Structures are given as structure tokens and as C-alpha cells.
């Protein structure tokens, strides 16, 4: 095993289930149990669960919490009701992305939970501290104290209600959450990263282990990071490091709807305002090639004459759609739907065209 790799609280469960384990974001994580295709289809047709305990939980509280979160976050939390969740990004002054995250408006006044990518926890926490001057807030990185299981798929509601013995889970709307008391605090949120209905359940490491076993007994398929990526990709969801980075702005990534430019200010706003007005040099698009060959991250996107106009960021032969599709960052001049583009895959060049990024029709609870 590599040095300094962390283990999630469910590590022993993964090993006992025979998962193929691999380093990801500083953690030893399950990539697959039975196979990526099986697990992908379990989530699309029934229900699967993911250990996402590696994700970061950072709590913000204090008299200036709302004003502070709005300063570092692209979406608008002003007046947000307790129990609501917003997706958005933290930006550098350049408009590049520090991280994409979920912000939970807590039931305690002046309190927020920020859920960030595992690979960025340390960087994000420092970024938050560095940008807190002048705000009366407390910033608490509690990532090590929380486990998290994502239960995803059309049968997720039924199985979560049964396992928790809590019918209230059924009435949670998309992007809302509830606290659940069971001798300790659990957070149950109607969110996910698969394009299906589902829940993300935050609990202590001990409770997370009990829940994992209970979901397993209830017939929920354990799913690894392999299909987490194929699922989020089909649903048109970006992954930090692939579609978002310090060098890619939300406007370039097509995520402007999560950036509220009518707010007085937030870090990076000026650049986004300018990009919205003037356009960007690059844009993230969906691309399909008319072949079974698979476009992978890093492969060049070209015009018919071989001129390079972009690069693939994520690509698969889609399991649910049986199409060879990818996200690609291309020159904006070639970003319109239907534009013919070519992808170089090893020694061959495959024709294709720009298509919508949401490849798969998502099935979220309203």
C-alpha cells in the first residue's frame, strides 16, 4: 500500500466484500465489487450504495456566517430556508475553481454545512480560513468525524424508509435534508451524483458501519467509484479535476446557472461578469463519435483537416445509452450543438458532433 493513504471507516467492509481497491483522492477506495457494468445498472434500475465517507464536511457558524458563505460561494444563500441545499463553487479571484460543493443551511441559526471533494479538503479549509478576515465566523473541518453513504436508484426511497424505519424520508424533496436523531446526529439529504433519485446519509463512523450492513441485508448493491464516474458522467455532472479546475471557470464549464451574478460580490465574480459579457475562449461541450471506439481524457479534438481545437476531459462508451460520448473542452467557435468534430484515438480519427452534455435523462425526485 502507498504511504499516507487514508482509509474510510468502511474499509474493512470493502475488503471483506472482495472489492478491487485503489488509491483515490488520498484514500484507499473501492473501485468495483462485481463489475462496473453490473453496479451501474443496479443504480439505474434498482438501488445501489456508495461509500463516500472520504468527502469533506466543513461547518461554518457565527453571526456573519451567511455573509461569509455568500462571499466565498457562487450561489446565493441569502434567506435560504433551513433544510435547503444549494450546489455551487468556490472560486479564485481569477474565476478558476477552488472546488465545487454543496451548502446545507442548518436548522441551528447562522450555521451552514459545506460538503467538499475529498481531494480538496485541506486546500478548501485553508482557503476558507484565508478568506475569513473581517467575518465573525467559526470554521470547523469535521471531515474525520463523519462517515457518509450514498443510496441511489429508483428503489432508494423505499429502502431508506425501511432501513431507517422513518417514513419521513419519503417526503424529503430534491436538494433538501433533515436531521435524524438516533442517539446521535444523522443527516439525511435527498442528493446524489448519479442522475437517479437517492439519498446521502451522514453519520458517525460507527453508525455508518451499521447502516452499511443494514442496507446490504436489504439487498442494496455495493457500488464502487468506477460506476460512480460512469453514472455522474451520463447525467452530465462535472468532476473536479476533469471538468472543473483552477484553470477552468464555471462559465467555461457551462455552470453559470449556479453563479448568481446579481449578488453584490463574491470571490471571482468580476471575471465571470466579464466572461458572460464577452464570451470565453473555451467551452465544455458534449461530444459523440459514431463508432464503438472510446474517447478518453486527454485525447485531442480536431477539425477535419487535423487542426487541434480541444481535448477530451471524460469519456466512455456509455453503459446506459450504448453510445461513445465524452465531455470535451473546445474552442468556443466549435461549441454549438451539431458542430462536426473529430477525436483522435491512438492512430485513428473518428468523426462525431457536438451534443447536449446531459446525455442521460435524469430521474430526480421533484
Amino acid at each position, binding site marked *: 500500500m502507498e504511504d499516507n493513504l487514508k482509509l474510510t471507516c468502511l474499509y474493512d467492509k470493502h475488503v471483506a466484500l472482495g472489492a478491487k481497491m485503489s488509491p483515490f483522492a488520498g484514500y484507499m477506495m473501492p473501485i468495483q465489487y462485481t463489475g*462496473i457494468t453490473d453496479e451501474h445498472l443496479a443504480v439505474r434500475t434498482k438501488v445501489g450504495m456508495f461509500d463516500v465517507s472520504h468527502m469533506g464536511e466543513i461547518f461554518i457558524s457565527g453571526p456573519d456566517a451567511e455573509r461569509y458563505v455568500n462571499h466565498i460561494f457562487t450561489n446565493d444563500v441569502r434567506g435560504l430556508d433551513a433544510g435547503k441545499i444549494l450546489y455551487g463553487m468556490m472560486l479564485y479571484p481569477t474565476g478558476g475553481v477552488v472546488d465545487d460543493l454543496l451548502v446545507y443551511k442548518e436548522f441551528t441559526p447562522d450555521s451552514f454545512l459545506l460538503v467538499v471533494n475529498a481531494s480538496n479538503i485541506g486546500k478548501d479549509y485553508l482557503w476558507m480560513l484565508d478568506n475569513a478576515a473581517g467575518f465573525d465566523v467559526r470554521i470547523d473541518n469535521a471531515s474525520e468525524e463523519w462517515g457518509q453513504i450514498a443510496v441511489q436508484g429508483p428503489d432508494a426511497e423505499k429502502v431508506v424508509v425501511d432501513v431507517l424505519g422513518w417514513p419521513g424520508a419519503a417526503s424529503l424533496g430534491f436538494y433538501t435534508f433533515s436531521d435524524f436523531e438516533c442517539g446521535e446526529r444523522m443527516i439525511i439529504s435527498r442528493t446524489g451524483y448519479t442522475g437517479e433519485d437517492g439519498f446521502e446519509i451522514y453519520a458517525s463512523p460507527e453508525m455508518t458501519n451499521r447502516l452499511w450492513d443494514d442496507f446490504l441485508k436489504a439487498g442494496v448493491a455495493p457500488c464502487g467509484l468506477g460506476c460512480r464516474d460512469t453514472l455522474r458522467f451520463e447525467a452530465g455532472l462535472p468532476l473536479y479535476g476533469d471538468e472543473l479546475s483552477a484553470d477552468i471557470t464555471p462559465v467555461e464549464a457551462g455552470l453559470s446557472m449556479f453563479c448568481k451574478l446579481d449578488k453584490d460580490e463574491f470571490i471571482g465574480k468580476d471575471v465571470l461578469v466579464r466572461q458572460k459579457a464577452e464570451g470565453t475562449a473555451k467551452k465544455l461541450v458534449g461530444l459523440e463519435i459514431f463508432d*464503438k*471506439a*472510446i474517447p478518453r481524457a486527454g485525447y485531442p479534438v480536431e477539425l477535419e483537416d487535423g487542426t487541434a481545437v480541444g481535448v477530451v476531459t471524460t469519456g466512455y462508451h456509455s453503459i446506459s445509452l450504448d453510445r461513445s460520448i465524452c465531455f470535451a473542452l473546445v474552442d468556443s467557435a466549435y461549441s454549438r450543438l451539431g458542430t462536426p468534430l473529430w477525436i483522435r484515438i491512438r492512430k485513428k480519427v473518428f468523426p462525431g458532433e457536438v451534443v447536449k452534455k446531459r446525455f442521460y435523462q435524469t430521474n430526480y425526485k421533484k
Partner: protein
Amino acid sequence: MSKIIEGLLYSDSHEWVKVDGDVAVIGVSDFAQAEMGDITYVDMPEVDDEVTKGEDFGALESVKASSELYSPVSGVVVEVNEALEDAPELVNEDAFANWIIKVKMSDKSELDDLMDAAAYAEIAK
């Protein structure tokens, strides 16, 4: 434990060769297919393409990864296994029965660099 067949020659990049006169029938080993997992696409050259010993002539793709195929011999492709275009999973089902390309060899002495089954068994584990 993966299957290894006696009488074939093997490369250290996990291709096998069956010699049929001047023609090398080339596939991947059972070990290689097991390492890849579910194969979803086999990228193959075309008939009359030249291949060079040690250089890639195509690739196997699984959902998550692609793995290049290296030619164990030099020569000209005389046949590709078209069945794999529509059914790449055949390689998973039987990696030895489902060859990938046939190459008319330009230098049969290159075969001397390949391993026999016993030697290959040492590296395929």
C-alpha cells in the same frame, strides 16, 4: 489462476502467438483479459496494415481503461477477427479461442524472443 496453453508462444506484454507456417495468429492471454475486466471494444488494424514487433497495433478497452496491444512479430496483417467488432466480450469468454489478428511474418527469427508456456507462467501471476 489464469489458463495457459501449451504449444503457444507468449510475449511479456501478454499476447500469445500460434505459428501457422509463415502466419502468426495473435491474441491476448487469459491473464490479460482477466486483468482488464469486461472488454467493451477491441481496436484492431486493417488488413494490409504493417505491424512491427514491440509496437502497438491496437488496444483492448474496458469501461474504465484502455490497454494497448503490442505486436509480438513484424509483418503484414492478413486477417482481423471481425467477430470481435460486434462481440468484444468473446475475448473475456475465451481469450485463446478468440484470436485478434493474423500476421504474415517478415522475420520468423523474431519468434525466438518469445516465451514458451512454462516461462510465461512465471510472469502471468
